[in-house]
């Protein structure tokens, strides 16, 4: 296990470096001078040249990348142009809210997805299966930002049960674990949970169906095992793949939260990314994407290791 884990970690290093390279290059595919956002409109040539060398934009690209990477490793992602604060602290503060949203959505989406998937796979081709697969396909086909709007229309505008936007009463930044704050989480979490719910349902349904059609299940039944015992074997066999899919989905929720956070004005990394894009705050844009992508890579690594821990067959391949 230790050997497998260390091998996986070594494999991740080139991926992390390439991710950093992509994030670095993002700023350089932007049309126009990257200094435009910091330079005052009436700046002189000398000031522009001065700033260019201060930011290191006058050096060759590989040197710039090396310097940027060196600083990034030491936790320095530069300062936000809009606020002047360090990018890393801005991002980390926002990521907390995104993690909270993603975890809440995962609890809803994974529970329902596992439930629907197991039932649909077990009672394949019955009406229960048809209902569950219809819900699943609707879940993966829904434009989630639209679902968010529809939920706001129903529960905020028409019924006035839940708040439409924000993450706390009075727009305050402080979070507390009480209903006054939690009710702000309900609609965004449900909206976020729909896609993972659909995907987990489809995966688990297919897995359950495949496992049930294998010979060993026949053998278990022939041995006289009760259906509940057979079901336990199904779950054990489906667990590694289901776990991998859920890990990936959690990563997608963390990294792909921008649309939902925009709809609900949820103060997470997605909303930060949105403001970075529209204020042309390139260091913030670059930093947010780097941090989110690294979270995603790390999560995938953890899933790989966890998968190998519960399924010894994976280590050998």
């Amino acid at each position: 296990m230790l050997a497998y884990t260390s091998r996986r970690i070594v494999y991740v290093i080139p991926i992390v470096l390439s991710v950093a390279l992509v994030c670095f290059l993002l700023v350089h595919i932007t049309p126009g001078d990257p200094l435009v956002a910091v330079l005052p409109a009436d700046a002189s040539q000398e000031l522009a040249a001065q700033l260019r060398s201060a930011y290191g934009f006058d050096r060759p690209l590989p040197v710039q990348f090396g310097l940027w990477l060196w600083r990034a490793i030491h936790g320095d992602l530069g300062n936000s142009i809009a606020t002047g604060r360090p990018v890393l602290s801005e991002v980390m503060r926002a990521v907390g809210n995104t993690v909270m949203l993603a975890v809440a959505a995962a609890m809803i989406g994974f529970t329902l997805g596992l439930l629907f998937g197991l039932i649909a796979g077990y009672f394949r081709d019955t009406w229960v299966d048809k209902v569950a697969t219809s819900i699943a396909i609707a879940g993966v086909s829904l434009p989630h930002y639209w679902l968010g709007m529809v939920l706001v229309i129903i529960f905020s505008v028409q019924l006035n049960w839940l708040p439409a936007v924000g993450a706390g009463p009075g727009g305050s930044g402080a979070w507390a674990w009480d209903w006054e704050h939690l009710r702000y989480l309900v609609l965004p979490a449900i909206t976020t949970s729909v896609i993972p719910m659909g995907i987990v349902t489809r995966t688990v349904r297919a897995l359950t169906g495949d496992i049930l059609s294998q010979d060993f299940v026949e053998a278990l039944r022939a041995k006289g095992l009760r259906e509940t015992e057979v079901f336990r074997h199904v779950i054990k066999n489906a667990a590694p793949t289901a776990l991998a899919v859920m890990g990936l989905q959690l990563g997608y929720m963390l990294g792909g939260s921008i649309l939902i956070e925009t709809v609900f004005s949820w103060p997470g990394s997605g909303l930060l990314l949105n403001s970075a894009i529209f204020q042309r705050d390139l260091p913030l844009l670059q930093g947010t994407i780097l941090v989110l992508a690294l979270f995603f890579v790390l999560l995938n690594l953890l899933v790989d290791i966890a998968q190998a821990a519960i399924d010894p067959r994976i280590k050998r391949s």
Partner: protein
Amino acid sequence: MSAMSDTALQAAPASKARGYWATVGRRIRRDKVSMACAIILLLIFASALLAPWLHLADPYQGSMIRRLRHIGTPGYPLGTDELGRDMLARLIYGGRLSLVIGILPVIFAFVIGTSLGLVAGYVGGKLNTAIMRTVDVFYAFPSVLLAIAISGALGAGITNSIVSLTIVFVPQITRVAESVTTGVRNMDFVEAARASGAGPFTIMRVHMLGNVLGPIFVYATGLISVSMILAAGLSFLGLGTKPPEPEWGLMLNTLRTAIYVNPWVAALPGAMIFAVSICFNLLSDGMRSAMDIRN
């Protein structure tokens, strides 16, 4: 793969006149859900294409006195938007741009990804490693984040959003194409073609392309659903087209302010995205089971 060819061989004498694709076509025509989706999509495509000849109201012509009319108002079957423009006309005209920016990236990615995957899978070795490791890098980003990162860096615009979505889908299609190609490469008929002196280009084009295209095509059809949602999502964020252009994602965004006045009109553009997306998903599922002769 081998199970498929076995059954195909066994089935050959019984249906001599019918080829594989004819069988697939017949199976999909019998599938009610797939046919219903195909018809809905056809209607949406046809109305978008023929919009100028449908005697609709002007989708750009607004009026301050008839803003946000409800659905079913005489003369405005689907109401009017926040600037008093006819919603029915805007939804139908909106289909033109929305469908183009949703489907083009998948078509581009299909061509590029299939080529890359075919070459990687057939040539193998160092070239395979180079292509597939590059693909892995893009898998280190959640697709929504990658699309928004590229689109955000390039700036708003239709071309940029098509480019960014193409970059998102190329790695996914390349992976599928590579794995299908690797499966076909070692089959006897490829060996036979090689033995009879066919060059690598001929083998890839004549002998392999036809065998790998089916599964890749089904996968790409499923991607259209994601692409529609993402493309409209980029416009929704303001990274796609600009007002007053009718486009479903952008319409959804500008109508957000209207949810307190006329909520259901505001939700209409999203329903269109949902309809197209779910139809492509169901159609892709239908094709997948129609091609899976084992069932």
